[in-house]
C-alpha cells in the first residue's frame, strides 16, 4: 500500500518534470526571438506614436548605393551637343541650363501628365537625352511637371539633373528648362545604406520631427554632398529624403539624411578645395 503511494508521487513528479522540460524545449526558439525583438527602433516607433506622429509604413531593409561624381553639362557639353537634334522649338542656354519654348503646346492630363509627356521625353528630337529621365510625381504640381535624371537606378533629386515643364491653366505644356549631369562616375564600390525606418527614427531622435505631424513619404535618392574645385565636379551620395507635414499649421518640410553615415544634411552642400590633388 505504502509502495503504491510512493509510485503515485513519483509518477506525478516525473510527469511534471517532463511537461516543463518539453515545454521549455519547444518554446525555446520563441523565447530567444522575443527577448531580442523589442530593440531600440521598435521602442522609438512606439514613442513616435505616443507623440501623435503618423507615418507611412517604413521598411527595415538596408539598401545599397554608391558615391558618384559628375559635372553639370552645359552648352559645350553633352547636353549642348544633343540639343542640336531638337526640332519644333526654340532653345537657349542660361549658363548650363537649357531653356526651351515649344512651337505648339502639348495638352496633358492634369492627373497623369506623364502619359503624354513620356512620349515627348523619349523622343530625341523633342528632348535631348530624355531617356535618362523619369517622371517624378512627388516634385510635380499643377503648374510644373518634373522629370528627374536617373543615376545608378535611382532618382537624382537635385537641380543638376531635371526637366521642368511649365503647364498653363489650360493644361498645356508650352516650354521647359533642362539640366543634365554628365560623366557620372562611381567612386567607391557599392555599400550598404541605412534602412528607411532607421532614417526616420534617427530624425525623430534628434528632435527634427515635431509632435502631431505626419511623415508623408521617405525616399532614397541621390543628392549633392559636396562641390569640388576641379572642373566643377560634385560628389553625390544616397540620401533619405523625408517629407514631414505638421498637422497644426499645415507646413511641409523636407529633411535629408545621408544614407551612408546617417548625418543630417544641410541644404547647401559644402565645398572642398581639391587643387592640391592635381599635383
Amino acid at each position, binding site marked *: 500500500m505504502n509502495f503504491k503511494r510512493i*509510485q503515485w508521487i513519483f509518477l506525478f513528479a*516525473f510527469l511534471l518534470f517532463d511537461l516543463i522540460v518539453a515545454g521549455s524545449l519547444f518554446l525555446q526558439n520563441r523565447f530567444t526571438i522575443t527577448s531580442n525583438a523589442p530593440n531600440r527602433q521598435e521602442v522609438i516607433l512606439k514613442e513616435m506614436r505616443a507623440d501623435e506622429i503618423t507615418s507611412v509604413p517604413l521598411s527595415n531593409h538596408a539598401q545599397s548605393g554608391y558615391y558618384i*561624381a559628375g559635372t553639370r553639362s552645359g552648352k559645350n557639353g553633352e547636353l549642348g551637343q544633343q540639343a542640336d537634334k531638337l526640332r519644333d522649338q526654340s532653345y537657349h542656354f542660361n549658363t548650363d541650363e537649357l531653356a526651351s519654348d515649344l512651337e505648339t503646346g502639348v495638352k496633358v492630363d492634369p492627373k497623369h501628365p506623364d502619359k503624354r509627356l513620356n512620349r515627348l521625353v523619349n523622343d530625341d528630337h523633342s528632348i535631348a537625352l530624355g531617356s535618362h529621365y523619369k517622371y517624378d510625381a512627388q516634385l510635380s504640381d499643377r503648374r510644373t511637371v518634373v522629370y528627374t535624371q536617373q543615376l545608378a537606378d535611382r532618382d537624382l533629386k537635385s537641380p543638376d539633373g531635371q526637366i521642368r515643364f511649365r503647364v498653363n491653366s489650360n493644361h498645356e505644356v508650352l516650354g521647359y528648362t533642362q539640366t543634365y549631369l554628365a560623366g557620372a562616375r*562611381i*567612386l567607391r*564600390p557599392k555599400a550598404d545604406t541605412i534602412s528607411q525606418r532607421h532614417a526616420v527614427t534617427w530624425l525623430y531622435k534628434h528632435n527634427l520631427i515635431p509632435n502631431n505631424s505626419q511623415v508623408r513619404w521617405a525616399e532614397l535618392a541621390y543628392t549633392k554632398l559636396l562641390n569640388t574645385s576641379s572642373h566643377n565636379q560634385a560628389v553625390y551620395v544616397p540620401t533619405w529624403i523625408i517629407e514631414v507635414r505638421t498637422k497644426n499649421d499645415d507646413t511641409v518640410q523636407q529633411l535629408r539624411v545621408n544614407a551612408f553615415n546617417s548625418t543630417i544634411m544641410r541644404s547647401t552642400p559644402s565645398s*572642398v578645395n*581639391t587643387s592640391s590633388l592635381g599635383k
Partner: protein
Amino acid sequence: MIKKLKSNWLTIALTLVVLVSFILSGIIWTNPFQYERPHRENSTSSSQQFTTQSMGDVYLPTTIVRTGKDGQQNLLYSQRANLINDVQRNLCDWKLGRTSEVKTNNCDVYLSYLRNRHSLMLSYPDNVTGEVFNETFDQSIDTNRVKGINHIVIPLNGTHEIYLLRDYHYEVYRVQVNKGDFAKLPKIGRHVRPIPVDHKIIKGNAMMVYPHGFTLPKLAYQVSDQRINNLSTNLLSTNRHTSVTSHEDSDKTVYTDGTNRHLIYDHTNGTVDYENDIGNSNVVATGQLYAHFYNILVKTGMPLDNIRFDQAKDHNRTFIYRTYVEGFPIINTDGYGGAKLQASQSGVERYWMSLYTVQVPLPLSGDQDVKLPSTTSVLNELHASNQFKDITDLRVGYLWKGNSQDSKVVKLVPTYFVKYHHRWVDYTELLK
C-alpha cells in the same frame, strides 16, 4: 496478460515517464547552447554618427582570389561591386555541417590547398578565430576544432565542402556543406577585373605574390576629422559622474578623469594615445579580444564603414585595424585611418589612434593609373640594395602621405609595402 497489465499499470506508466525524462534530458545535453549575438546596431550618442557595421563587418576577409581550372590564380578587383559583401551575404544562407581535420604541419599540402584548382578563396589579412567566422557568416562550426582561420577555400567543382586554412602550423580543415548555392559566387565579369596572382611560402609565411606587373588607380579622398573633445569624452566618460580635466603641455594636451585613465593628444600630427589601467582582475581573455576591441572601436565613434581588422601581434594581445579601399589597406606613418589597440596581460589597455580618417571619395581627373612592378622584381631590387635581410613581409597597399593638418583632401597612391624592422614601409623609401 491484460490482467497483468491492468494490475501493474502504475509501474508501467512510471517507467514510461522516467524514460521520457531521460530522452528530454538527453536533448538538452546535446542541444548547443543559445548564445545571444552582439547587436548589429550600435549608436554613439556624442558623435552624431550611427554605425551600421556589425562585428562581422569589421572582421571580414579582404581579398578574393579565383583559381581557374588550369590553376591560374586571379585576384578579383572591382571599383564598383563589393564582392566580399556579396560572398558574405551568400554564405550566410549556407548550412555548414561537420568539421574534420585534413592535414597539419605539411607546407606542400598546405600550398596545394592555397592553389586549389577551380575554386574561390577568401583571405583574411591575419588570423581570426572560429567564433569570428561563425559571427561573420552566421554559422556554427566546431570552434573547439578550428582554432584559427586565414583563408576560406570554396571549391567550385561540385564537391559539397569548403576548406578552412590556418597559416600557423599549416592547418587544413574540411567543412561539409549541407546546403549552399555555389552558382551565385562572383565571377570575372564586366565590372570585375582579374589581376594575376600566385601563392608562395616565403620564409615560412604563406604569401600572395604578383607574378606580373599590373596597374591600380590613384584615389582621392576627403579627410574627415573627429573632434578631440568628442573622442576624449567617448573614451573617458563612464556612468560614474567623474569630470574630465585637461591640461596643456607644449604640443600635447593630457586629459584625465581622476581615475586610472588618461589620454594624450598630440596637436602636431593629430594622434591620440590612451591608457587605462583596469587592473589584473579585469583582464579580457585572448579569445574575447575580437569582440572587446570591436566594442572599443564603436565607442570611439570613428566611422567604421571601411575599417577592417588587419593584424594581431604580441601573442594576439595587440590588434591593428586599418581603412581598406577596394581591397587594399591604407598605410600611413602616423596611423591615420586606423587604430592600434592593446590589452596587456597585466591589465593595462592602450589605444593608439588618430583623429583623421577618410570617408568620402573625390573624383580625380586625367589618367591616374599607377603601374606596379611584379613582386619578383621588387624583391630583386631590394636584394640589390642590401636591405633584404631585414624584410619579413610584403604587401600591396595605398600610401597616405604626409600630414593632414593643412590639407582637407588626400591623394592615395598604390605601392608595395615591406615590413622593415616591424614597420610597414613604402619599398621605394628603402631603395633610396
